[in-house]
């Protein structure tokens, strides 16, 4: 086990407390840098989605994880970013300009959503953000002169300073990865400054935050704006990756996917946002694979246990019907969320910390270390 001997205030400000971090992240970065030259194009494509989802995850983490304001409307912010990019691209606006515009416009919209949300708490805020998402979805479908309605919009290949960057090229991957890293570093900077601490203070006790001189309303709006802006930037990249966008891509299910990213990853850390994104991008092909192969496997098992040929194929048909049922994906996502909240509330990253501590303390690790305690002294009265 490593004991940090702190001799300077700098030791608590530094992003990497000791040389171990430098090694770990250095190796990780090196691996990510060589990835496009080693891995197949399918996996690279998935990695780009991981980067985009993780960026949105970081954005949502700022709002939900650190400021404690739940949002089920982030698909709408992503949509606004994506459509801004697609719209401006038609008029030959260069990429850097419409990329910035996508983020800034979404940030402004986020701030506007933040204002009415100031008076709402918990479940009511969730409902308000869902309604916002539905409104945006509806506008995208109806405002045909700008969004081309349900026909959707084609997004042309990205042009940066006369150089075309195709959506499957390593350059595009590096762009997404670079933006993710930039977002993470920016967020970490924010978290070690007064603004980030104010966010956490609002999450844990609004009353106390207010009496410490924090303008709660202003900081909630700031949090909404930052979170939305990051999502808007990601939306621009998302549009380029898909090369075609239409309103039905930005539904409630996508917002729920973002919630899964931060919840499964671990709702109080940026590591969690990245882990959650990896989990989410991985689970989709896995579900598709299960959908195709599971009925056959079940039939195989059934015939092993003595089911006749006819009844085995009957079972296979039934299983296939269930597997391809409408809305099953949503149900599975719901189940995943429920199970994680019940059994691993700190998510994948929380589990990783436990495993790490187990080996650090071996053989002295106690199971009760992470036992949840109920605390009764906090009051909700003065909210």
């Amino acid at each position, binding site marked *: 086990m490593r004991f940090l001997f702190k001799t300077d*205030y700098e030791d608590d*400000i530094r992003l990497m407390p000791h040389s171990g971090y430098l090694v770990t992240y250095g190796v990780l970065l090196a691996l990510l840098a060589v990835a496009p030259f080693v891995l197949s194009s399918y996996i690279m494509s998935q990695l780009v989605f991981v980067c985009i989802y993780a960026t949105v995850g970081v954005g949502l983490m700022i709002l939900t994880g650190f400021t404690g304001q739940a949002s089920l409307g982030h698909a709408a912010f992503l949509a606004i970013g994506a459509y801004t990019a697609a719209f401006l691209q038609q008029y030959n606006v260069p990429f850097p300009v419409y990329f910035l515009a996508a983020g800034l416009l979404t940030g402004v919209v986020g701030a506007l959503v933040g204002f009415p949300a100031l008076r709402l708490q918990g479940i009511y805020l969730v409902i308000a953000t869902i309604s916002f998402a539905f409104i945006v979805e509806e506008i995208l479908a109806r405002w045909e002169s700008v969004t081309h309605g349900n026909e959707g919009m084609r997004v042309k290949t990205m042009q940066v300073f006369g150089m075309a960057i195709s959506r499957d090229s390593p350059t595009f991957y590096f762009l997404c990865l670079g933006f993710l890293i930039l977002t993470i570093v920016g967020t970490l900077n924010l978290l070690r*400054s007064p603004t980030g601490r104010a966010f956490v203070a609002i999450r844990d*006790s609004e009353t106390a935050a207010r009496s*410490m*001189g924090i303008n709660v309303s202003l900081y909630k709006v700031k949090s909404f704006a930052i979170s939305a802006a990051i999502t808007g930037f990601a939306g621009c990249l998302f549009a380029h990756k898909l090369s075609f966008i239409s309103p039905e891509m930005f539904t409630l299910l996508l917002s729920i996917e973002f919630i899964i990213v931060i919840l499964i990853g671990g709702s109080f850390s940026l590591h969690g946002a990245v882990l959650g994104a990896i989990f989410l991008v991985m689970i989709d092909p896995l579900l598709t694979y299960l959908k195709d192969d599971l009925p056959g496997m079940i039939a195989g098992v059934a015939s092993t246990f003595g089911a006749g040929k006819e009844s085995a194929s009957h079972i296979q048909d039934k299983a296939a019907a269930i597997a391809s049922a409408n809305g099953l994906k949503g149900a599975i996502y719901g189940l995943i969320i429920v199970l994680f909240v019940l059994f691993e509330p700190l998510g994948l990253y929380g589990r990783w910390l436990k495993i790490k501590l187990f080996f650090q303390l071996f053989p002295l690790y106690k199971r009760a270390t992470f036992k949840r305690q109920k605390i009764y*002294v*906090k009051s909700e009265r003065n909210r």
Partner: protein
Amino acid sequence: MSYFRAEDLSLHFGGLKAVDAVSFAVEKGEILSIIGPNGAGKSSIFNLISRIYPPTSGKIYFEDQDITQQPAYEIAGLGIARTFQNIELFENATMLSNLLVGRHRHSTTQLWQELLFLPSVRAHEKAHRRRVEQVIEFLDLEVYRDKLISGLPYGVRKVIELARALCSEPKLILLDEPSSGLNVEETGDMSFWIRDLKTDLGITVLMVEHDMSLVNRVSDRVIALNYGKVIAMGSPSEVQRHPDVVAAYLGA
């Protein structure tokens, strides 16, 4: 003119008069205690001062400035800090970041500077940290620096709340039952610290307290409340002998 004044302060919830035309003044550098039976309106007065509730009527003055209409977050900016009866710390943060939040009213950095963590932000952070360390030393909290609040015992949290209030460098501090839930030894420490606030740091203290021995040890003056009304005011011993106070506590 008094340093801090409440004039005819009232807080009504429908027909219930939680605070009923209460007037009092706090002189600069004194320790004033508010006592009274449960439900007398002591904490409500604090919540009125820190603007968690808007008063039904009445005025509050601090340093000859009317602060009755100031938004809650500006009260701290004026130099009034407070602690809470039921501890309102930021549970899922370390003690250090809790105390740094106390420095919020002194932070001047802009959002874009913080995103880039410019050298100026770094310098500010270090300056804040130095002030926080002074408070940590003052209240003997060194061992808890990197501990999460959710894992700390009640008595320590109580002290940390005081520390957080001190980090904002207040001129007036409102202590809501500083000794509730503390054992005899911790209460003893608390009474020394409260006196030190006055003598060493020159902070004016307004406190609500049930523990009469603590009140006697530290207070310069005492106000007794019952049913939202002031029933006695004066030195600790005077107030305790006042027939109305005896009646309020023991029944007539």
